[in-house]
């Protein structure tokens, strides 16, 4: 589904990604871990098409299309979803209104009829149940005055609404207590199918107790330096990142 080859990217003069290679197939969950500043969030942003980053080299193919050639909104319409680490506030725009605009623009881009209010609400109610979110939250201005947990849960609700092929969760666990973490993870697990894939970007192993990855990759200095199964995450949890750094230094 997603094939990243030798991806290099910079912000300003600073090169952050130094040749990433990654293959993600439908139905898989990949965890990307690494110490602070290793380029995890940059990778997520580059895949979503954030302008601040410049791709220097490399290729990214998503379902047979050149992802890097696509505008951010077209990537979203093709099924790439980013759950933001810091979701922004949009005053005066409710999550409901925001999602209705998004869903209908996506439908329109596929040449389909927009949903009327009734069918939209029906779908919304189903998804609300799925991710255990209250409608009062969705009536409020998007992310305005939301707690950390509410913001992240709202991201997962949006993911449920848009049914992406590839979901990238950027440090979705940051700022969450264990209860909130469980709720969010539970929501993500319910959205997993054989035909979609998830990339979980995280600093800590604890989220992976609840979202079980098929593969774990360690990102360091803008490169994937080690890949393994969920046992690698446990090892990192126990030993920290220093041994990886040492291994890289030796190599």
């Amino acid at each position: 589904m997603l094939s990243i080859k030798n991806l290099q990217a910079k912000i300003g003069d600073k090169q952050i990604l130094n040749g990433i290679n990654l293959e993600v197939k439908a139905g898989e969950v990949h965890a990307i871990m690494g110490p602070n500043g290793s380029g995890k969030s940059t990778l997520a942003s580059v895949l979503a098409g954030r302008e601040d980053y410049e791709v220097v080299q490399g290729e990214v193919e998503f379902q047979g299309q050149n992802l890097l050639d696509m505008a951010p909104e077209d990537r979203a319409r093709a099924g790439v979803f980013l759950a933001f680490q810091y979701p922004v506030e949009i005053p005066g725009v409710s999550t409901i209104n925001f999602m209705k605009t998004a869903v209908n623009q996506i439908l329109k881009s596929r040449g389909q009829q927009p949903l009327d209010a009734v069918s939209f609400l029906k779908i919304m109610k189903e998804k609300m149940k799925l991710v255990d979110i209250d409608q009062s939250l969705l009536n409020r201005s998007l992310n305005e005055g939301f707690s950390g947990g509410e913001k992240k849960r709202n991201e997962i609700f949006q993911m449920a609404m848009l049914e992406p092929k590839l979901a990238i969760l950027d440090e979705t666990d940051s700022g969450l207590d264990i209860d909130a973490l469980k709720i969010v993870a539970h929501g993500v697990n319910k959205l997993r199918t054989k035909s979609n894939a998830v990339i979980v970007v995280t600093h800590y192993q604890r989220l992976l107790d609840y979202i079980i990855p098929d593969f774990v990759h360690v990102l360091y200095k803008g490169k994937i330096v080690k890949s393994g199964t969920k046992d690698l995450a446990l090892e990192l949890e126990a030993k920290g990142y220093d041994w990886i750094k040492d291994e890289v230094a030796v190599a």
Partner: protein
Amino acid sequence: MSKDNQVLEELTSKEYEHGWTSDLETDSAPKGLSEDIIRFISTKKNEPEWLLDWRLDAYRQWSKLKEPTWPNISYPAINYQDLIYYSAPKQKAKPKNLEDIDPELIKTFEKLGISLTEQKRLTGIAVDAVIDSVSVATTYKDTLAELGIIFCSFSEAVQEHPELVKKYMGSVVPVNDNYFAALNAAVFTDGSFCYIPKGVRCPMELSTYFRINAANTGQFERTLIVADEGSYVSYLEGCTAPMRDENQLHAAVVEIYAMKDAQVKYSTVQNWYPGDKNGKGGIYNFVTKRGLCFGDGSKISWTQVETGSAITWKYPSCILKGNNSMGEFYSVAVTNNYQQADTGSKMIHIGNNTKSRIVSKGISAGHSQNSYRGQVKIMKRAENARNFSQCDSLLMGDQCGAHTFPYIDVENKSARVEHEATTSKIGEDQIFYCLQRGIDEESAVALIVNGYAKEVLNQLPMEFAVEAQKLLALTLEGSVG
């Protein structure tokens, strides 16, 4: 230039939709302003002697006044002798019904989306349509008359209800109130008049639609609304003008007089021609709007969506004379390209337990300058007065300016006055968040702007809210979700 700036650039360079002209034969006064011209207008309108005297008095006072220089706007000096003060579409006789109206006129209004044919109208709105200097038609008059509501052109009111006009005209905005109000009093040509009798709740929105058509013509209309005890009316005002290279002057006066427990809601969607993207042409809009909450428990509410005009100078105000009376002002002012707006409100608290609320949302794009100017005055004898003001500015791009000039003047210790102000920019983060959800940039901007202005748009009557949203979307383009 970042991408959202580029999109804004494209959006804001969009052409003005109502810029066409109608080919109407007109009957005009010669250029210039003098006592003779005022006599000419008065004669044309077949006015009683007292009104001519009133005009001449206003003219003499105006001659002694100076054009204000305190607003945060700049424009070349206006040559008041180079303007035409009276222009009317030629009509053979006074139209008795719609069949008698020049079809070109009906076409003009239909092009604006205003049908003067009552049976064709879907929503219950009574319209007074004013083109250049005269009112051409007022719809639903008979229905309203059954309730004792008078809704007609100002000229007609002068003929049919002189006692009401004489009593209330100038009672809220005195002749010598300010330079432009005095000019209006001297040369006003038409406008709307509305009287709601005691205890009557007006069953439909009343609306005046203003259109400037003729070239080199100033439009000076006057609106007077009198709400008797315990009555209620919601009033709408819309305006457009053709695209012309030269600037056109619009100096209107609106007076609202609310008696005990009366409520008046006045909404404006101002879409005068703003000039082209280089700042050429456009309407100079110098308007005095004021409401007097004369009776106890009365309420006047102003809502305005300002997207047009090269220059906007306008401060819809409330004088809260009655005890427990209430004044509100909700405003969205959008400026683009080289537009300049100096707008806000005045709330003068005289009675006890009077309340006022000001919510102003400025949006500046392009090279425009957008200023909020507001005054809250609590007089010595006003016990327990309350005011809340909120002035927000939204900036788009880095060439525009937003300014806030609040004046707060409290003479009574029991008053509580709050003022909040914020300035923000549409963030690239906000735009990117929308893009990532599949929303294109245009729609993202419209979504964010409408969210920002929501508190004000919510105050508009349903029929108007849609038009206002469309207008915001058109001014900054993008579909509204």
